[in-house]
């Protein structure tokens, strides 16, 4: 019986709660209702109100409370109902949680997780990919899984980690992606990328739902004899610089693809690293594909134009190969 991406996250949290009595979940509508997307469904019945804490509507309060509990040695998993609302908790995450260890040696073993990403006509406030400012925050770890296997293994690793971790799930993958998962306990290491598909001509370095866009493009390009390597970063901070440079050295052409908007996105940082450390391997300029520099629009034709897609990747790959 295959497990969906959403079920994999639930299983990961559930198993950690079974394993460690200090792990608990906290957020809006996560108990009785089971969460807006049902990630925490069933947890209230199994673990009770003490460990499944329904809160008032207050994201900064939720994250602040998670930080306080983590400072006291617990391992809270806080849900943002939509990752867009993490903006309300920005100060708590960036100024409180991220700096505690560096400033005064206090650990904040907290996870903040929630659904991000577009393609579901959620409009400007239920579709964003808010990772960029957090990738720019030393002290945080930022994860964005693409597969059910990684989602489960990484949420478990995040809960066991002794630093604050932001875990951006892609809501478009929740029920669309499923696979058979191994029996029993496993984790996926934070900070390690994965080569999803081997190739020789062009590398696409990406994460989250864009992994599937890259794979669709790779399938199509394969028929034209263009061999595409797809690298899934999985962790965005600290990102796997070795894996990034290794694929560039191998193919000499690279597309940096993300669903986040272009300016100030992770692609810019990756491009700089490639330029600094693998310039002599490049046969073409570093290419970026990202969402347009606009808010996420609601209406279908606008959102389709906003998001990266298979055809945009194909076009860019052909341009790189012809360069």
């Amino acid at each position, binding site marked *: 019986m295959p497990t969906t991406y959403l079920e994999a996250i639930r299983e990961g949290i559930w198993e950690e709660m079974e394993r460690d009595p200090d792990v*608990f979940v906290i957020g809006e509508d996560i108990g009785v209702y089971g969460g807006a997307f049902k990630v925490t469904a069933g947890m209230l019945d199994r673990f009770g109100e*003490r*460990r499944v*804490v329904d*809160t*008032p509507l*207050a994201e*900064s*309060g*939720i*994250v*602040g*409370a*998670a*930080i*306080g*509990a*983590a*400072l*006291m*040695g*617990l391992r*809270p998993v806080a849900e943002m109902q939509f990752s867009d609302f993490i903006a309300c908790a920005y*100060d*708590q995450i960036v*100024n*409180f949680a991220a*700096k*505690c*260890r*560096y*400033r*005064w*040696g*206090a*650990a904040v073993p907290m996870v903040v997780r929630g659904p991000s990403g577009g393609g579901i006509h959620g409009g400007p406030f239920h579709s964003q990919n808010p990772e960029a400012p957090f990738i720019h925050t*030393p*002290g945080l*770890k930022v994860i964005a899984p693409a597969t059910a296997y990684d989602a489960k293994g990484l949420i478990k690793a995040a809960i066991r*980690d*002794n*630093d604050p971790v932001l875990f951006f799930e892609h809501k478009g993958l929740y029920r669309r992606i499923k696979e058979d998962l191994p029996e029993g306990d496993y984790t996926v290491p934070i900070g390690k990328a994965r080569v999803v598909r081997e190739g020789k001509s062009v590398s696409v370095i990406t994460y989250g739902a864009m992994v599937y866009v890259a794979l669709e493009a790779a399938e199509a390009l394969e028929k034209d004899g263009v061999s595409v390597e797809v690298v899934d970063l999985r962790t965005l901070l*600290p990102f796997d610089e070795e894996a990034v440079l290794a694929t560039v050295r191998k193919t000499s052409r690279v597309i940096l693809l993300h669903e986040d908007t272009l300016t100030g996105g992770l692609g810019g940082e990756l491009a700089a690293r490639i330029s600094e450390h693998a310039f002599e391997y490049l046969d073409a300029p570093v290419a970026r594909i990202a969402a347009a520099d606009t808010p996420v629009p609601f209406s279908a034709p606008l959102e389709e134009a906003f998001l990266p897609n298979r055809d945009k990747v194909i076009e860019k790959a052909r341009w790189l190969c012809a360069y």
Partner: protein
Amino acid sequence: MPPVRWGGLMSVAQLATNVPELSGEDPGLARRFLRYMALMREVEDRIERKLYRQGKVVGGVYVARGQEAIPVGVGLATEPADVIFPSHRDLAIFLIRGVPPRRIFAQYMGRVDGLTKGRDGNMHMGDIKLNIVSIISSIGASVPVAAGAALAMKYKGTRNISVCFFGDGATSRGDVHEGINLAAVQRLPLVLVCNNNQYAYSTPLEKQMAIANVADRAPGYGIPAEIVDGNDVFAVHAAARRAVAHARAGHGPYLLECKTFRMTGHSAHDPADYVPKHLFTEWEAKDPIRRLLDRMLDAGWTDRDEVSGFYAELREEVDEAIRWAEASPFPDPRTLTDNVYEQ
């Protein structure tokens, strides 16, 4: 000033059950008050009036001259396993928890023996082993974090509580609302201590809020509150004992509003020209240390000679602490990138 109490969802009669009222006739307690209040003032005076002016302390310097009764009165009402979130005007909390003054001077001077080893300055310090959580500069952010610490106390089934200090300015921040509301709904063991010193930087109270008292907000959260003379350490301590007992008994949060006055600028660089001079004169007469000393002398718990001896020893202790801190090394730049993450 008689204590004013708000009942929240409970009647005043239900509040703070079984807390013996202090007689106010405890010379031992008075000596402890004096020790911490006088030490706090001496340490802060040296930092602000000497080390800062000599350039040995750089950056922000926030002192609490005239407000020492608040952290001392509250701090001595807590147990070591209670977690405290001091604000930037609560130095005595560190002294009460056993942090030696030499480490506080080292902290202000950016030395490795400071509580943050030079990573942060002034009152931005904490020690999780002592159950003191460091403040951050976005004032009020500590309130939801303190609520979370209180949640952890309840979660673990301990009888311990969380105590959070903040100023009148902080009460305008949304985080304070979110934290108090969450703690009230969850009935968390949280004591909220507002140091209402009537100025947030240059902003007077009437531009901070349209109500007379911070405590007036408590009924809106369904929690009890009381207003106390923040310059009377006996009154602060008695109120803190009621608040602590309330939280420890599982009745939820309790708000203490301590009315006081900031006898300085916001920080050492600020001459506070915006404060009408007569306010300083009026509040100088209410100085909490002088009031405590007068009471001790009147009651015959001490005499002038003993007080002189006490201060002479205190100054010597602080001299020695400063010498020690000045000998402490600056941090090695090679440690710059250490401990951003667990190592």
